[in-house]
């Protein structure tokens, strides 16, 4: 069935919050608030998380993986290089000296952590991304946007909710 996209813009954050709450509570046919609703805002509102419910963030697992793997790899590769570097006279000193190797391990631990965190961010945030079917530059300025995707039958109800809550503008586009 054909899907329809609607983007409603609000200047008042409280009003946008009421809309989201209403959309979640009403249980409109042909519209699933969990999957079909995206809130766009010009700043990071901690309140958005509160009223959208607890949604998981998994970036920190990428961080852990990147830091541990890169740290381990650095120690292993440095030790392997030292173990195979026969031309250097060791003079009774350990072939694989731990304290200096830990310095390099520490640096690569951080390097891996940072690089893979950024990679994790791109994956988890879905970036780079194509433009949504509906977008308004006002969202990056001072307005809050609620983008919904619904079946045609539900769009009239959704529009009426947006209008009732004083949406400044409602954009509409037929999806695929």
């Amino acid at each position, binding site marked *: 069935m054909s899907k329809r996209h609607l983007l409603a813009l609000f200047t008042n954050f409280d009003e946008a919050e009421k809309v989201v709450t209403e959309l979640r509570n009403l249980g409109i046919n042909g519209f699933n608030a969990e999957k079909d609703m*995206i*809130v*766009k*805002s*010009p*700043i*990071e*509102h901690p309140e*958005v*998380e509160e009223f*959208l419910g607890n*949604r998981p*963030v998994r*970036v*920190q697992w990428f*961080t852990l993986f990147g830091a541990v793997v890169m740290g381990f790899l650095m120690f292993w590769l*440095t030790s392997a*290089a*030292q173990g*195979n*570097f026969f*031309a*250097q006279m060791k003079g009774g000193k350990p072939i694989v*000296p731990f304290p*200096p*190797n830990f*310095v*390099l391990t*520490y*640096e*690569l631990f*951080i*390097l891996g*952590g*940072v*690089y893979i*965190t*950024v990679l*994790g*961010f*791109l994956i*988890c*945030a*879905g*970036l*780079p*991304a*194509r*433009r*949504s079917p509906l*977008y308004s*530059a006002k*969202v*990056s*300025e*001072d307005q809050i946007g609620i*983008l919904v995707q619904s079946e045609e039958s539900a769009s009239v109800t959704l529009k009426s909710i947006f209008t009732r809550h004083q949406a400044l503008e409602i954009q509409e586009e037929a999806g695929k």
Partner: protein
Amino acid sequence: MKDIREDIAWAKINTDVLKSLENPRKLYWVILFIAVAVFGVGVGCEVYQYNMGLGVGNFDNPHMWGLYIATFIFWIGMSHSGTLLSAILHIMHADWRKPIYRFAEAMTTFSLMTAGLFVAVHLGRIWQIYFALPYPNMRQVWPNFQSPLLWDAMAIFTYLSSSILFLYVGMIPDLAICRDNMHSGWRKKLYAVLSLGWEGTDRQWRNFRMTYLTIACFLIPLAVSVHSIVSTDFAASQQPGWHITSFPPYFVAGALYSGCAAIITLFIILRYVFKFEEYMTKSILKKVARLTFAIAMVWTYLKWVEFAQAWFGHNAHDQHLLIEKATGTYAPFWWMMNFCASVVPFMLVFKRFQTNIPVLFAVSLLLNLGMWLERFMIVAPTFADGFYPWTWDHNQWPSLVQWGIVFGSFGWFAILFMLFCKIFPSVSMYEVKEMVYHRSLETKKLQALQAAGELAAAGKGAH
């Protein structure tokens, strides 16, 4: 004192900051022109040195490092306050960082890029720089992994690339604003590519917050490790004046100190050039000035620890070197360093100077002069008074070629920094909006509480 207005329109924040990308004051072009000219002098000196050899820089044995390594440490130090302070203040939720952290992080990035040049320049034989890199090769020769110089290379690379990522990630929402507001041309395309299709969705913000916080947590120990490792280039040797236990914290404090002073200098320049008076307020400047004074005192304390260690350490070489520093060839530099870096900061104690822009500008330049001299005083006197008697009467003075390259590095830094500020927003728009939003919420809460209190008081009276 006037701070950022809570009732400022968010659209105005966008307009004001985006305007800085198009028409700065004329001073911008003057600074850029001077920077290009100074950089040109540096390039000319480097080409001359490349063709003639390091001798034209007055380098000989034992004076092999001279101004190049002193300036290398200076630039590494300058890089510290930007990213490190930004990360610390972010974790501590200090909202006054928001209008100033972007340019401070850019300062970190470009300082590190400038410092990197000196590694190549001081080699003389630039084409052999690949020897410093650990990679498998036919001769099976590896760099010495136990050398602080290799740790240095790894630490600086990690810090530079992590700082760039920190700067870039923090800028993505602003790049989207630029993309949405530019009408056409190469800038529009650049912002479109760099903003990665950011739309400010709840999913993007959620992951963004976690990412930014995580990188900030990594950067704090990283920044401390970088300058500690730079200090081990000296402290791990046996040379008098270098083999000092307190060098790592002393270097870190010095780095923070010169970085803070540089933030004041650049703050004042950007505030005027890009007409940011409404965002880079005197209230913020006051906080940075106080922070600089606090760090200056930590640095001064550690400096005295170094002197005390030399004086009471019963090491004749260290004592001799300390006396030489205060009375020998380099004495004017030593006294100037102590004056600029330990006495001048007391100007920052006075409230009227904490917001006096001409005074602060002059003080910040003097502080950085003091910190540059400090780096020179670490490098040069030890070479002139080492353990070998044949070095004792050999006080080397840098040639014009060395000075030219050092001045050229300031031009290089200024070019990169000014171009960055012209192409990318140097004030974080979305964070200033957040700051204004949260402050207005707090004010509303306060007003509500006050109103409730007044009502209660009125009720009591009536009762």
